């Protein structure tokens, strides 16, 4: 059992140990969908939603697996839950906003292979969070992911107007900016206990 307060968990997951900038989880969408602030924030919302749902499901599954004493099925069952949640979100987005569906493109089904989502499920189990702590953890992780994505998108929109040397175009430049963002997020380390 773990008795961290909900506030601590949220700040820890979103700022101090930001999923993207400190744990390197979910780097693919961080590099891929961070071109525009609007798409980035919606992608963040979709990922957060999947995180919360799969966090709740993972909590239930873990109870079940512990009851029947089959911990080796943990990884496989988590990934199945995440894959079906993503499928659900995909159908929902396609129905509600076809434009957004197009903008997110391949990255929407790829939420399944977003390490941040699986990491939430795995970390909450290994830390022994109860159901409320798990949901807070997922919300914090999602908020941190969205924050990193939106910050990066904002910076990249500005970079569009500047002249960049040929060798730094593309991924290299995004990684350099990511490094500087990661440095600045180290400043949050003082917040934690």
């Amino acid at each position, binding site marked *: 059992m773990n008795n961290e307060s909900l506030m601590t968990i949220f700040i820890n997951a979103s700022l101090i140990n930001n999923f993207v900038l400190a744990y*390197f989880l*979910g780097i693919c969408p961080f590099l891929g969908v961070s071109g525009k602030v609007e798409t980035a924030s919606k992608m963040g919302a979709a990922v957060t939603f999947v995180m919360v749902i799969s966090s709740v499901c993972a909590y239930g599954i873990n109870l079940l697996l512990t009851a029947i004493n089959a911990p*080796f099925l943990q990884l*496989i069952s988590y990934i*199945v839950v995440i894959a079906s949640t993503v499928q659900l979100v995909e159908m929902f987005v396609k129905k509600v906003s076809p434009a957004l569906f197009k903008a997110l493109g391949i990255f929407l089904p790829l939420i399944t*292979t977003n390490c941040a989502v699986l990491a939430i499920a795995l*970390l909450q189990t290994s830390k022994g969070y109860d159901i409320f702590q798990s949901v807070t953890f997922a919300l914090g992780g999602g908020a941190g992911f969205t924050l990193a994505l939106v910050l990066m998108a904002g910076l990249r929109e500005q970079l569009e107007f500047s002249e960049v040397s040929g060798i730094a175009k593309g991924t290299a430049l995004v*990684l350099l900016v990511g490094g500087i963002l*990661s440095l600045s997020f180290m400043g949050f380390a003082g917040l934690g206990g």
Partner: protein
Amino acid sequence: MSLTDQNMPNKGFFSSLGEHQGTDDFLRGLWRDNPVFVQVLGMCPSLAVSNSAMNALAMGLATTFVLTMSNVLISMLRNFIPKEVRIASYILIIATFVSMVDYVIQAVSVDLHKSLGAFIALIVVNCIILSRAEAFASKNTVGRSLMDGLGMGLGFMFALFCIGSIREIIGSGTLLGFQVMPDTFEKWVIMVLPAGGFFTLACWLLIFNHYKIKKSKA
């Protein structure tokens, strides 16, 4: 379906392996289409677990094993898996092998298991593995998929080692645990911190871009 698959009579395991095709599949992953430096896939583990050369090698080996085994199995089953549920089936196959690796590493070295942390389990969601399953193993013979898996896996390990050794040498003054820098060397602590991962990979990409541009001009 690839051309080789349709035109060659199915004689056996390596039937459609041309004379140089196997080596070509192998070398493509290792260098020309290197998963990290060229395709920019699998960024999460290559940044997170590359803070020391030892971690990088262990992670590379584990990924190579999973990639090769899943490529082989998926290639064997490629005619039996219905198209609609293929991604789900691939992920299940991959997750099975990852669970195996997880337990093996735990049995071999608890310390290593601790320092790699959740990232062993996260091999499941490594985009390299799923992309090879979808783009290669589901369309090619078992022999070619095996070579492709080995090549891509070792290419991933090579890239991880490139990043990991630099971060370890500059960040802690050691390589694989042995001291390589003189005692007077001031360690750059930032290199073992997350930001160092971003910077090191960015520098490697800059170097590769430089050569690519030079080559295309020449």
